[in-house]
């Protein structure tokens, strides 16, 4: 993908540039940095799936302003990436900073053991409260948001909607009716990008707003081991919706990747795509203003009156507790949350949703889909975080279970039972008594 190549080469060029300019610039640095310190170098372990242009902009600023340089180490995404993070933590070999999911997946890392508790720092008060609870265990807070939050919903092609006179659906049935129209006209009704199996989860995870509306106590009961996905009707509904999508996918959806998906949506070759709104940034980088042919709506519920969107919280930067540079880590985190850093970030990468930082406004040049569609859900207060940010437990095998269901191999009921089993393993590992 172009953006990734560009990013990598920028990165390579930057690092080599730094290395080459090292001898001469280090004494200059100590003059310019605020408290006259030498440049400190931190390492950051990051996966190859995220956009790093924004981070690099901040890092460049940080080197100038506070004399902290961040060296990036990459790891693959997906299960292999999780594995690397867990192995490196367990073997005491983590980089100074680590980028990893917030919410239940953070919980599964056993963060108290490995990550720096930042609850005592002043800058923590800047973090949005809901987000803060997603990066906390008990009273301890561990991370700062890496990027803006995102919507976990449906990206749709306005071009196709106009062509076939469709309206943005408010209920699941209306949505399926729209899909039928597209299908009858030989268009791809729903774009599936199951070659990246995480994308198969979106119809299921993106239904969290509806789940929380119809059963507000589910997350709590689920954590306590009292409620199960297979036996709670509102929860089972999320799996049923995923099952409904099976008949609408493009022919080669099991071989289509997320990157292919960006191309397909940008060219108006599919009607809907269940995805995170970060896809908008990727499409923007590849196709520029064509991104404004796309809109976003929430995974519809069963009632037209209550239509709200599911929020996906960004991954967070965590500090390694056993690093010998904890002061620099804290300083960098503080800087990362400053207005200056956020400005630098959003200058490089436009946001895919609101920031998780208090009193920081979205820049007004955001994509139409973000500025109009997603913003509307915020103004009306109709949004809720995905379940993994409220609940402690997310099954590790969720992508495969969803991929299996979405490709019609299992029924919703079977998938829900499998997922319950999968969560049970996680609960055992966390020491929960189910």
């Amino acid at each position: 993908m172009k953006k990734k190549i560009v990013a990598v080469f920028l990165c390579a060029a930057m690092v080599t540039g730094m290395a080459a300019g090292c001898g001469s610039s280090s004494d200059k640095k100590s003059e310019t940095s605020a408290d006259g310190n030498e440049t400190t170098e931190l390492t950051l372990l990051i996966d190859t799936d995220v956009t790093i242009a924004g981070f690099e902009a901040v890092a460049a600023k940080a080197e100038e302003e506070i004399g902290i340089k961040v060296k990036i180490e990459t790891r693959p995404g997906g299960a292999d990436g999780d594995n690397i993070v867990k192995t490196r933590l367990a073997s005491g070999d983590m980089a100074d900073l680590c980028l990893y999911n917030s919410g239940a997946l953070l919980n599964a890392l056993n963060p108290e053991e490995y990550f720096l508790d930042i609850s005592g720092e002043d800058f923590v008060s800047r973090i949005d409260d809901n987000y803060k609870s997603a990066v906390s265990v008990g009273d301890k807070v561990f991370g700062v948001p890496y990027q803006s939050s995102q919507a976990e919903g449906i990206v749709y092609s306005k071009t196709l909607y106009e062509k076939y006179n469709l309206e943005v659906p408010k209920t699941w049935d209306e949505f399926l009716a729209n899909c039928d129209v597209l299908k009858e006209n030989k268009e791809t009704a729903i774009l599936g990008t199951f070659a990246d199996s995480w994308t198969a989860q979106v119809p299921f995870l993106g239904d969290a707003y509806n789940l929380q509306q119809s059963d507000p106590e589910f997350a709590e009961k689920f954590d306590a081991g009292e409620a199960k996905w297979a036996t709670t009707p509102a929860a089972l509904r999320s799996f049923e919706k995923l099952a409904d999508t099976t008949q609408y996918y493009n022919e080669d959806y099991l071989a289509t990747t997320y990157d292919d998906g960006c191309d397909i949506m940008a060219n108006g070759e599919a009607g809907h795509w269940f995805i995170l709104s970060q896809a908008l940034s990727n499409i923007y980088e590849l196709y520029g203003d064509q991104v404004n042919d796309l809109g976003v709506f929430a995974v519809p519920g069963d009632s037209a009156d209550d239509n709200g969107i599911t929020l996906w919280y960004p991954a967070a930067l965590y500090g390694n507790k056993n690093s010998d540079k904890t002061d620099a880590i804290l300083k960098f985190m503080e800087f990362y949350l400053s207005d200056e850093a956020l400005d630098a970030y959003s200058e490089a990468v436009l946001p895919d949703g609101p920031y998780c930082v208090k009193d920081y406004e979205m820049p007004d040049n955001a994509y139409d889909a973000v500025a109009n569609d997603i913003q509307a859900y915020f103004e009306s207060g109709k949004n809720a975080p995905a379940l993994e940010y409220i609940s402690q437990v997310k099954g590790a095998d969720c992508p495969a279970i969803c991929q299996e269901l979405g490709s019609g191999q299992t029924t919703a009921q079977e998938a829900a039972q499998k997922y319950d089993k999968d969560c049970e393993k996680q609960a055992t590992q966390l020491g929960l008594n189910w």
Partner: protein
Amino acid sequence: MERKKIYSNWFIVPAMVIFTVFFLLPMVISFFFSMTVWDFNSFTFCGFDNFKTFFSDTSLSSSIKNTLIYAILTCGLKLILAFFLAVFLTSKIKTKNFLRSVVFFPNLISTIAVGITFCALMHPSKGLINQVITMLGGTGVDWLGNTKTALYAVILTDVWKGVGVATVIFIAGMQSIDKTYYEAASIDGATGWEQLKAITVPLSRPAMNSVIILAFISGMRTFDLIWAMTGGGPGYVTEVMASTVYKQYAAGFYGLSTAGNVIMFILIAILAFPLQKFLLSREVD
């Protein structure tokens, strides 16, 4: 006898030390940790819970089935193909040296690279294989996406990559067969096919046994290729034991994963050792 004086036990010590410390010891330790909930720094003993979890999991039982299909089919296909390739490549054709190299060549490429290439070749709409099929008037298959074909597509790729080594073993076996047998047979008027059945097959039995054992075991342990091509999917249809173990491990369930390792070890042992015994006993006849 004097044997003990000539052959000192010390000769085996360096190999055994490395092998014990870095292979046997971890294996023994794994039996212990398979009965714990383990996060590397601390563990809680949990008896046979991990094994129970594993066996109650439907994806595991299907992964055992897939592993067996994989091992038996790759082993069988490699055996048959390699045998005939070897017969062909030990005959008097002129290009045999070149062809031998060609057949062995896939073995030099890393599994990851082979996975990438075949994923591309098997792409449902753009892939070369389907394009050829459509050109010949057939309908393309979604090789890796269709739940019915995915496992077999990976198996065929494995055979493509591994048939070279099996062929070399067979060639080695056939070259060591005494030529006079064939001369005698052709004087007696035996046809090529009869010679093959009466001389080549029985006399290359040791090579055949090596091929069977090596291919079967590598099939049982397969991981890289599955991981590079399908990641166990779509859903769980190409999940094999090693990938299940790896997934539990990646999820941080170290105790559970180690238990899976132990199950795998036991399963391979109860299949492979008797198989080897059986093959060796036939060899003596």
